[in-house]
């Protein structure tokens, strides 16, 4: 048992109400960042797929690297117990196929679930239409899920991380992701400069 105080909710330092207050504050900041970056605009977002505006890659990879480095260092310093942060579990095939279906829908919609809400909140009717479609899609797929249960539960790997795959220390993989991001940023700048 480490002496880490975070996650606060897990350490009993944040009650149910505090947790919901945190949800609201985190959501406001999340929506703010998405709007400021311009990703609440479908035309700006799809620039990623036509290689004219790579804001999606820059924003997402910067965010991933920042959160990854922050979590890694806070854990190392004994502030955050990374073992108590919920890591999304792995189901290889459903996540590959679901991801591909999601990506096809993303190219048509021009907005992802989070950014469609920002688009709708800032007056874009296309954003509101994506929100409506998402709700219908989740409702219909949820209702139909029992019939594809075998596939949905297939290739389960539980909590499974990249360091587990490559059998290297966590910090080495963190460094590799940072290098990958810096390389991607360099490519993105060159593509945009064309």
């Amino acid at each position, binding site marked *: 048992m480490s002496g880490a105080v*975070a*996650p606060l909710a*897990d350490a009993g330092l944040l009650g*149910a109400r505090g*947790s919901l207050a*945190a*949800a*609201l504050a985190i959501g*406001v*900041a*999340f*929506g*703010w960042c998405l709007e*400021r*970056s311009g990703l609440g605009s479908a*035309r*700006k977002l799809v620039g990623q*797929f036509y290689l004219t*505006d*790579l*804001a999606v890659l820059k924003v*997402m990879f*910067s965010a*991933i690297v*920042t959160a*990854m480095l*922050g979590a890694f260092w806070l854990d190392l310093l004994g502030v955050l117990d990374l073992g108590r*942060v919920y*890591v999304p579990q*792995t189901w290889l095939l*459903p996540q*590959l196929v*679901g*991801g*591909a279906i*999601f*990506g*096809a*829908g993303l*190219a048509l*919609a*021009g907005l992802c*679930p*989070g950014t469609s*809400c*920002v688009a709708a*909140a*800032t*007056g874009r009717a*296309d954003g509101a*239409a*994506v929100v409506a*479609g*998402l709700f*219908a899609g*989740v*409702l219909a797929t*949820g209702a139909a899920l029992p019939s594809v249960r075998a596939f949905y539960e297939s290739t389960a790997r539980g909590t499974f*991380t990249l360091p*587990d795959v490559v059998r290297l220390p966590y910090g080495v993989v963190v460094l590799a992701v940072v290098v990958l991001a810096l390389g991607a940023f360099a490519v993105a700048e060159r593509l945009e400069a064309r």
Partner: protein
Amino acid sequence: MRPMKDPSGPTASCFLFPTGGPPERLGGGIRKQESGRASTPYSDPYLTGVALGLVLLSAYVLVGRGLGATGAFASAAATVADIVSHAQGRGNAYFAEHLTEGGLLGDWIVVEMLGVLLGGWASAALARRLRFAVERGPRVGVGERLAFAVTGGAVMGAGAVLARGCTSGQALTGGALLSVGSWVFVAGAFGAAYAAAYLLRRVWT
């Protein structure tokens, strides 16, 4: 209200969306408005990305979980299914796991997404970027664009249910925690998005 035929026609302006201004095909950058007030250009993507990463990190630190978006849609869908039919709402394992005792407003991810709506609106209001518009490609009509948006949204919803998350819950949250499934999701999503975008180039370019 009369249907919007041309995005370059006049836009509505109201209490919630006070800026009005010339509706245009939005793409980013500075846009001069008729009134002479310019909407602020979007912020630097690296800077907003780092800010977004700090928001994600604060979620790990405060509540031990990351961000999400699709989860709120799942909670809303489960609630509707439960209202329509208790058997559907409780008997379906997917809906059952997205029902919260305290109702929708006691659901962490629903409250988080209400915050997203509020934060997105406030940010756009302060930057004078609120406006009624339908963003679309140059060769696509408003009705066609809205139909594509609903369809694309529904397809994304199906994919996000199967993948157990979207760009927020998988790509950002799981990506930064180095989850294999999240990186597999990113590979599948962006691979398919590039392929689909090529086929859909008439829609956007």
